């Protein structure tokens, strides 16, 4: 039994289906990468909050903790008033330390100084420390 060769129309249909399939896979791959590229970056639970006990932060003192995987600090400049800040110096990324005597932050790397509100007081830092929202919940403080 001899095989009947496929007609040009049949071959075109067959090849057309393969081409369409390849096009669909390529378009899908391209579309997926564009979607991933344009999607907001996953910052590891940006919405998550940190809960701390109020007793951890003395009036005029500071308490360091981790917020969204980064070093952060909370202060109580006056009784009942809390400020939460990113504790990473905006110059080169060292972790600032709190100086009780002067009530300001000092970066041990290049002597950048920040106020208790995170504003630059001196040294090389180009901008203020980022602040985080703080809310009170009974005996706890919610950051973020």
């Amino acid at each position, binding site marked *: 039994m001899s095989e009947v060769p496929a007609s040009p*129309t049949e071959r*075109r249909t067959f*090849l057309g289906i393969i081409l369409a399939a390849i096009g669909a896979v390529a378009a899908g791959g391209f579309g997926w990468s564009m979607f991933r590229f344009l999607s907001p970056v996953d910052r590891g639970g940006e919405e998550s909050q940190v809960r701390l006990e109020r007793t951890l932060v003395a009036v005029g003192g500071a308490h360091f903790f981790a917020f969204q995987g980064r070093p952060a600090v909370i202060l109580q400049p006056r009784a009942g008033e809390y400020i939460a800040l990113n504790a*990473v110096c905006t110059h080169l990324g060292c972790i600032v330390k709190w100086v009780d005597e002067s009530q300001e932050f000092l970066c*041990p790397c290049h*002597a950048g100084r920040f106020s208790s509100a995170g504003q630059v007081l001196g040294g090389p830092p180009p901008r203020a420390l980022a602040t985080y929202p703080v809310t009170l919940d009974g005996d706890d403080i919610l950051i973020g």
Partner: protein
Amino acid sequence: MKKIFIRANLLFFLLIFVGTLPAAAVTDVCIDCHGGLAGQLGEIPTAEWQTSIHARHRISCHHCHGGDPTDYVKAMTAERGFVGVPEHSEVPAFCGQCHVGVEEDYWESLHGQVIDFGGPNCVTCHESHAVQVATIDLINEISCSRCHSYEKPALIKEEISATEAMLSRLEASIASLYRVGIDTGHLEDELFATRNSFRRLFHSVDIDKIRAETAGFDADLEQTKATIDELENTLGKRKIAGGALVLLLLLGGCIALLIRRTYEGHE
């Protein structure tokens, strides 16, 4: 049209020039006068400073020596904060104006405790004007043997060398990630903070303290490495996906050619 283009170009370069003027003005006064003087008051420190890490980061004469770099007449007056050349024992506080953390560890170290008896200060190892990016090579037999035997420094160097090597590898990895367009800001910050704290540690020249705390730094570096590995892994996957896409397009092209050939008999 051509004239407008030339004028726009001129304006662009003029703006760039004007933009650089304030930066240039900062160093002019000190370098203008001292750059022309011979010896240790002029050409030597000026030339040395120009090769330094400080010059690269625009840390100029007045940042350490005080004074006013914008005023020829009052540049070197106490009124403008000029402090001149520090005494041997004043050098740590001089450098500590910026390097506060290292200064703290230095004073606690044996080096700091013997400074009034001629012990080493910052510039003994780091140089004064030709100060370079610090590396582990600063601990070497020639340098340390100027004051004492090399036995203890060799132990310290051995203790920190693996962590230092890891730091260098991670720096190189971050640089290559940056070159391919990855936002490495957080990684750079993390690594800089770890590197700075680690280098503070060995300024203590206390072998027991260094031994006890090095493991903590290694753990921090492992975390940074894990993030870098993850990014490199993603990049690898992207390369494979890109290659597959190119192959698909080539295959699509071949099939389009075959489809074209099905029309040839009918032409």
